[in-house]
């Protein structure tokens, strides 16, 4: 088995999120990648995905903890995540600062919680910050490695919100003393959709806490910007990364092309080389 080795103060490692493009890419360019980011949900529903670690180290990602929600994950789920943490020897668990389960509308307990297939940006408010503080303090005790939190893409103004995404993330980081997974694409999508200046906004984040960076594509449709893991990372995302490169010291940068059945290898190769140069110490 291959395990991730982090060199203190070294340049960031570069990896790909697990998806159909990974296997053919690894077969031809294994030296370009330091790791593959695999989600707990993939490992749970398709245990064969674990075999990837015979070839390359694995970084664990997760969408099941509903850190910013009111419905906690089951003990069984948390135990399963913990098993994968120990087996993969991941240095951290990247989890969304979002929710994926919610109480049934109108508090109808008989119906059971609403389960979604995509993490959702929560209401950006003091109340949600408090909720994250409580949830995270419980969740952290279950794992031998830290949880780091990933900013969500914001597609619409959430009812009851009282702050911007940057302010929300900053408050959570400060109150929870938690490090961050900065999804640069999510951040740019959020700024664009909410009419904010992305460069000014991104500097409101506690960037010194960024441990991992996510990069993916985005698309503009129906008057809004959307996350798109089947499209190449656009120049605008690299431009934003360039703006903050002096303030961040990520240990890992993950390209998310996991929705795509294929992606021109030259695109991935060029972007990996470009990113390594951009973030070289």
């Amino acid at each position, binding site marked *: 088995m291959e395990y991730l080795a982090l060199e203190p103060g070294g340049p960031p490692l570069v990896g790909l999120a697990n998806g*159909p493009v990974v296997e053919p890419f690894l077969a031809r360019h294994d030296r370009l990648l330091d790791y593959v980011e695999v989600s707990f949900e993939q490992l749970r529903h398709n245990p064969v995905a674990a075999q990837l670690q015979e070839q390359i180290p694995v970084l664990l990602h997760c969408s099941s903890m509903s850190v910013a929600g009111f419905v906690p994950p089951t003990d069984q789920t948390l135990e399963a995540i913990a098993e994968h943490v120990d087996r993969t020897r991941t240095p951290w668990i990247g989890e969304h600062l979002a929710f994926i389960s919610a109480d049934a509308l109108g508090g109808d307990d008989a119906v059971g919680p609403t389960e979604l*297939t995509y993490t959702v940006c929560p209401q950006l408010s003091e109340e949600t910050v408090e909720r994250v503080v409580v949830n995270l303090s419980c969740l952290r005790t279950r794992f031998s490695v830290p949880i780091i939190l990933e900013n969500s893409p914001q*597609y619409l103004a959430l009812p009851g919100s009282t702050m911007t995404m940057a302010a929300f993330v900053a408050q959570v980081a400060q109150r929870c003393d938690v490090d961050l997974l900065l999804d640069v694409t999510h951040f740019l999508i959020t700024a664009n959709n909410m009419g904010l200046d992305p460069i000014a906004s991104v500097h409101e984040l506690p960037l010194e806490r960024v441990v991992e960076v996510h990069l993916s594509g985005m698309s503009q449709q129906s008057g809004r910007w959307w996350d798109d893991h089947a499209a190449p990372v656009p120049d605008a995302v690299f431009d934003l990364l360039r703006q903050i490169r002096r303030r961040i010291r990520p240990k890992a940068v993950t390209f998310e092309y996991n929705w795509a059945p294929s992606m021109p290898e030259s695109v991935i190769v060029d972007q990996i080389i470009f990113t390594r140069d951009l973030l070289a110490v």
Partner: protein
Amino acid sequence: MVAAGLADPDRLRAWRDRPDLLAALGLAPATVDLEALEDFAGLSEKIRYNQCRGDLPLTFRLLSLTQLEIDLFRQYAPQSLARRQLGRVSTSERLDGLLLFVEAWTSDTDPVRCLVRDVLRHEHTIASLRSAPVASRVEVSRDLVVPRHNGRLVIHRMTCDPRQVGTVLRDRHPDLTQIRRGRWTFGYHRSTAGPLRILEMEPGIGDLLMTIDGRRSFDQIAADLFGDAGASDMLHAAFAQLTRLGLLVWDAPEGVAS
């Protein structure tokens, strides 16, 4: 409220039609961007279709380039939810559901939607012919008078040539103005013996192939087509040609052993 709306697009539509339902939940309707929420439901639906991307690379590429993905999946979401509730969640069932929706969503006066429909038909047919079992071939003999398709044959009329569309879409910077539009008829054919074939054909040949149902004899088909005049030499020749191309085989009439 956000989760409930995303999980059930019908509920989102109900809220849009009757804002008092939102007020009953303690939300001021003006504070909820239902339009954006419905688009978000479209994104969630699109993500559910990631498992189909391997079968529909051109369709997804085209939807992305024409910026129709979110709108299409937003409109499809209620129908898709109904299919999921019936347990129709396999890749082939999802492909079938999407095609059913797109056939109804497409108006013949909208060239972009026609293009999406045609490319989806093309990729859906290839996927279903690749995965479907093919009936065994029956040898031809002079006693056999009932023509039927040899294996599986699907005829599509198109407003484009999906093979040419594929060439355009595979470019790193596709130029959609290079897509040729017009009228094409294609036969998608797979017999037991051979690989999947895509044959461009005259519209009349496509019509003829579609009249063959595996139950009526050649003479019955000719009578249905031409009345008392019966089969012309041209029809004989056409059937013979289709048989030589491997598209037709012949059975004995019902009740007669071959």
